């Protein structure tokens, strides 16, 4: 699982990435050592209102004073990459484009459990 994010996390200036479901649940988050505490705060916020507002997007970029969030929507939810000013944004976009089909491998835990139960029962 970690491997599919390795390329994005390896790009200079990428502070972290998250996968948030369409319902606002944080499925996964990875942050570089310098941004772990900010990443932790980010993982704890209520993402549901954000996912509602972002429901109809394909991708988005949010430009803040000292960081940029690149957001790409997939069936699984939202891939969010947090980058600094010095990051090669085009490279991030390209890697996310490549990464997106693999996101379907990540499923919410309840869905995985459901699949498992169905297998056992039937």
């Amino acid at each position, binding site marked *: 699982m970690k491997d599919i994010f390795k390329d994005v996390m390896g790009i*200079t200036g990428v502070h972290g990435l998250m996968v948030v479901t369409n319902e606002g649940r944080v499925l996964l988050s990875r942050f570089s050592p310098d941004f772990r505490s*900010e*990443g932790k*705060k*980010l993982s*704890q*916020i209520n993402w549901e*209102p*954000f996912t509602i*507002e*972002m429901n*109809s*997007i*394909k*991708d*988005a*970029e*949010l*430009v*803040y*004073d*000292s*960081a940029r*969030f690149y957001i790409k929507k997939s069936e699984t939810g939202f891939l969010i990459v*947090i980058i600094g000013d010095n990051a*090669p*944004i*085009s*490279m991030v*976009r*390209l890697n996310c*484009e*490549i990464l997106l089909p693999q996101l379907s491998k990540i499923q919410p835990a309840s869905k995985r459990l459901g699949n498992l139960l169905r297998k056992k029962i039937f």
Partner: protein
Amino acid sequence: MRPNVLIVDDDQAFLRLIQKDLEGFSESFNVLTADAGNAALELLKKTYVSFIVSDLRMPGMDGFEFLSIILKNFSDIPVYMMTSYDKPKTKEVVIKSGAAGYLKKPFTAIELFGEITKTLNKKAEGGSLHNVTLETFLQLIEMEQQTSTLRVVDKQEERGGVLFFRNGELMNARVGDMQGKDAAYEILSWSNVSLSIEQDCVFQEKIIQGDLQAILLDAMRVKDELAEKNEMGDDAENSEILLDAPLSEISETEDASAEAKAEPLVDRISTQRPETTAKVRPIKEEVELSKLSPIDTIRMKIKNSIGGRDGILDIYHDPNWDALIDQVSNIGNAFNCGRLNVLYVNRDQDDQFIIIPGEETTAISILADAPWDRIIDVLG
């Protein structure tokens, strides 16, 4: 002199290798190399380059950033991207970004040679003219409403530039890294020129406003002034002869044998940014930004930075985005990354917007192929 082909890669060993491999084709073109995007851009300001091959992954300025700068400032130069990092979507993304082609590393010198010659031949598909009168030729293009890219060489000063026409209208011009009307005046002030014609134009929108006739008149005035000045210096001998020669004489004056000897003149040029020769400029309207409304200020800011090809459909205040802005501002606060300056949203139906928070939220609706990343850089 042969066309210049520029290869950009941070891998010095690769550059040495490819330069050596391409030595066998030195009769067709010169190979220039740069080990970084910035070094390549510096070189482009001074040297006329006909074809660029750039690596995708480079430290500092990566291939995409380099490509976007070329598309903005040297849009007539075809750029091929190369990478050893070939994934299924890479080629699609590269071509979508505006590259003329894509090469997967490793490739052979023959493969590269094939791509270069194919592209260079296309650039002169409409033929070449030597010792022509530029003014007359341009009037002909206007009359026939032609779409073409004219590569112009000033043979006296060994410098070059490009004029872009769409349906007979002068869309843009470029000399080195100078674009727009100034570049057009510069080119039109040259007296002894050669042309090569490509039957295509990269510009869809008109960067140079105004009628060609008016621009030509201004340019001729500049040229006359220059000639007077030169006469004082006793070295303006032939400019008048070429200035008014009719087009029919152009082909007659073309010396077939000389032409046969002539190499593609467009590529002969060193486009070291010429000293400004134009002394007369139309009066520009100066608008004080402070007197403009916020929407007009945004419009002006984008226009000044990007020009006419900004792809903007509309700019308006739209409170419908406020809830989204609140949400993304909260996220920014949680990550401690400061104020939200601008956001870009690409929606399902390819509706694209750039949103600027403020007392009144401003929405900019843009075309699908608008240079949105450049716009957010300007506004961010």
